[in-house]
């Protein structure tokens, strides 16, 4: 049902189209500004935010440094708790494993919790090819799926749709997939949510197989954690008889205590709440409570290649909060689809080219889909220096054949931004060229790995200052 990313045009081309879509830009602008203002307040409530951020970064760095040990420990704890662990080197293998597990239950449909990992590997399409219907149950994912559309934001995938469009999609398509939308459905959010509730409840109550991702996996206990708002996650995690979770290998935290950091920083960074409405944790299976058959599929799919890059590996710290999207001036104008990947915005610009390599047109253009203003780094709860990785990846792309500068200009122009801000363009170019000079091809190991703050600050202040004074 949902679209595919294959054959996506490069960022400049896709962004140029998006910038001309007035509705999309209006929806995006409203959404990103609302969330980022709320986020700033939620973060300001915690006096120790800087310490929590640093601890989150250190926990992730330590996990990545010893990922092999933590993976083995996790496998042992999940197995001891009654689960089964599978390993998937790439998306195809993960899809094969999941399809096989679903078929073994004799079922032909599954309910799904919103999950970036399963989108990344195109699981829904793979299941469809095997004759298995995968129903997205997050409201926004449902809107995207019914609209035969692609998600455009990590957290609010239907951010590009307004209420009128959603009403139209529900009225037109719900009947094709189950319970139809009520007669006379209006575009009030409450009515739209009610229509989704009725449509999906029918599916939840009969579902025998649930598929999820996870926000965290605790190595020492084998516990998986899913953070959500609506309760569709709880439905999928507790009502079916079989639960299959597909999770990237970087989602491990070593200890139960480590959750105290991320359960404080993730909700405030993503939905700007003190805590999201629902968090579920489960450890293997529990007698008579929830699925009696639990499978964990550990997914590599480019993560080990990312881990091998001294500068780029910090992208694996990402907890998918989406704060960086909401502050990004380029994302705000270009929209999520222009990034041609399930990971849009600043994190997408550094993660996708690393997971997939920089050979394709779209992946080669992504490191240029940025103004290097640094706002993404400022808000990131695990302190990923996205500008640093962008500059690093630009070097890699430029090394492939000198199209770097052209791409940079094209990306900025397409985002319809610097054309109105010549000063920003000049400053941005200065920043980019200066920082490029500061980064040798191989960084001295210790500093790069353990504390990116030991590296020279970048991009240089003039542009960040300009941006702070002039941010829209």
């Amino acid at each position, binding site marked *: 049902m949902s679209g595919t990313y294959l054959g996506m045009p490069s960022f400049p081309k896709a962004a140029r189209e998006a910038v001309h879509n007035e509705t999309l830009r209006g929806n995006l602008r409203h959404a990103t500004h609302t969330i980022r203002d709320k986020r700033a307040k939620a973060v300001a409530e915690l006096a120790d935010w800087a310490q929590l951020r640093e601890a989150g970064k250190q926990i992730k760095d330590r996990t990545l440094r010893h990922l092999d040990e933590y993976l083995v420990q996790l496998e042992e704890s999940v197995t001891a708790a009654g689960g089964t662990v599978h390993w998937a080197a790439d998306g195809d293998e993960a899809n094969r494993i999941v399809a096989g597990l679903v078929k073994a239950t004799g079922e032909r449909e599954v309910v799904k919790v919103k999950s970036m990992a399963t989108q990344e590997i195109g699981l829904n399409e793979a299941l469809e090819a095997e004759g298995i219907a995968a129903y997205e*149950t997050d*409201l926004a994912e449902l809107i995207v799926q019914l609209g035969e559309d692609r998600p455009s934001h990590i957290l609010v995938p239907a951010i590009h749709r307004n209420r009128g469009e*959603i009403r139209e999609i529900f009225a037109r398509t719900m009947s094709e997939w189950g319970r139809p939308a009520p007669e006379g459905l209006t575009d009030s*959010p409450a009515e739209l*949510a009610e229509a989704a509730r009725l449509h999906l409840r029918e599916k939840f109550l009969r579902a025998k197989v649930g598929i999820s991702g996870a926000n965290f996996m605790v190595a020492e206990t084998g516990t998986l954690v899913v953070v959500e708002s*609506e*309760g569709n996650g709880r439905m999928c995690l507790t009502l079916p008889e079989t639960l299959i979770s597909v999770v990237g290998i970087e989602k491990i935290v070593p200890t139960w205590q480590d959750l105290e950091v991320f359960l404080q920083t993730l909700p405030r960074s993503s939905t700007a*709440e003190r805590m999201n409405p629902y968090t579920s944790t489960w450890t293997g299976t529990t007698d008579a*409570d929830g699925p009696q058959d639990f499978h964990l599929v550990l997914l590599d799919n480019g993560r080990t290649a990312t881990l*091998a890059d001294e500068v780029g590996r910090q992208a694996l710290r990402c907890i998918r909060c989406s704060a960086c999207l909401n502050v990004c001036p380029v994302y705000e104008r270009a929209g999520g689809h222009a990034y041609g990947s399930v990971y849009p915005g600043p994190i997408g610009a550094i993660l996708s080219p690393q997971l997939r390599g920089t050979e394709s047109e779209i992946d080669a253009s992504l490191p240029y889909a940025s103004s290097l203003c640094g706002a993404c780094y400022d808000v990131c709860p695990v302190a990923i220096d996205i500008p640093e990785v962008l500059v690093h990846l630009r070097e890699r792309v430029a090394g492939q054949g000198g199209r770097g500068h052209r791409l940079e200009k094209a990306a900025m122009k397409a985002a319809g931004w610097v054309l109105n801000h010549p000063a920003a363009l000049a400053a941005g170019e200065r920043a980019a060229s200066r920082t490029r000079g500061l980064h040798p091809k191989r960084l001295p190991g210790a500093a790069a790995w353990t504390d990116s703050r030991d590296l020279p600050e970048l991009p240089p202040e003039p542009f960040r200052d300009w941006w702070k004074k002039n941010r829209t």
Partner: protein
Amino acid sequence: MSSRDQILARVRAAVADAPEAPEVTRDYLTTHTADDPAAVLDLLHENLADYRALVHRTRPGGLPALLARLLAGRGATTVLAPPGLPAEWLAGSTATLTADTPASTAQELDAVDSVVTGCAVAIAETGTLVLDGGAGQGRRRITLVPDHHICVVRAPAQVVASVPQALPRLDPARPLTWISGPSATSDIELDRVEGVHGPRTLEVVLVEE
């Protein structure tokens, strides 16, 4: 080579030259709130209400009457009581009690008007209730499928100030459900709408013992 061995080998090769990562510095706060049970309870009340839970306070003696009033106010004719819920809590209610059994289907739960449970721990700074499936809390599904959930919190015994104070009191081997306000979505133009899937109404009774 199996995918398992292949992935582990790739990980080892990827970090072979990486220097040791330091121990984690935990100099963040373990609480953001003064150590005063009354203030912590007030904060819990405030934050629960801020996330649109309906909050009530009572003394232990007043609990049965309050629960009876809340259930009657909803017009609840059936109420689910998980195993281990003190019988006297619901002694004042005229609603028909239904027990949750492993054989109860999701459809049966869907037909229940209200569910009353206790909790394992409540977190004041975030306005969060944590259920761990222990006595009086039941399986995860019973606080999910019915549309009305009343959760009883015993203060000060079950109340902590912060997330770092809550985790050590919880057993990761049990399935946990953290609840902060009723089910909500902001997926339509970021307008908050309560209850897409979980209970649309969450009532919390703080019992000051």
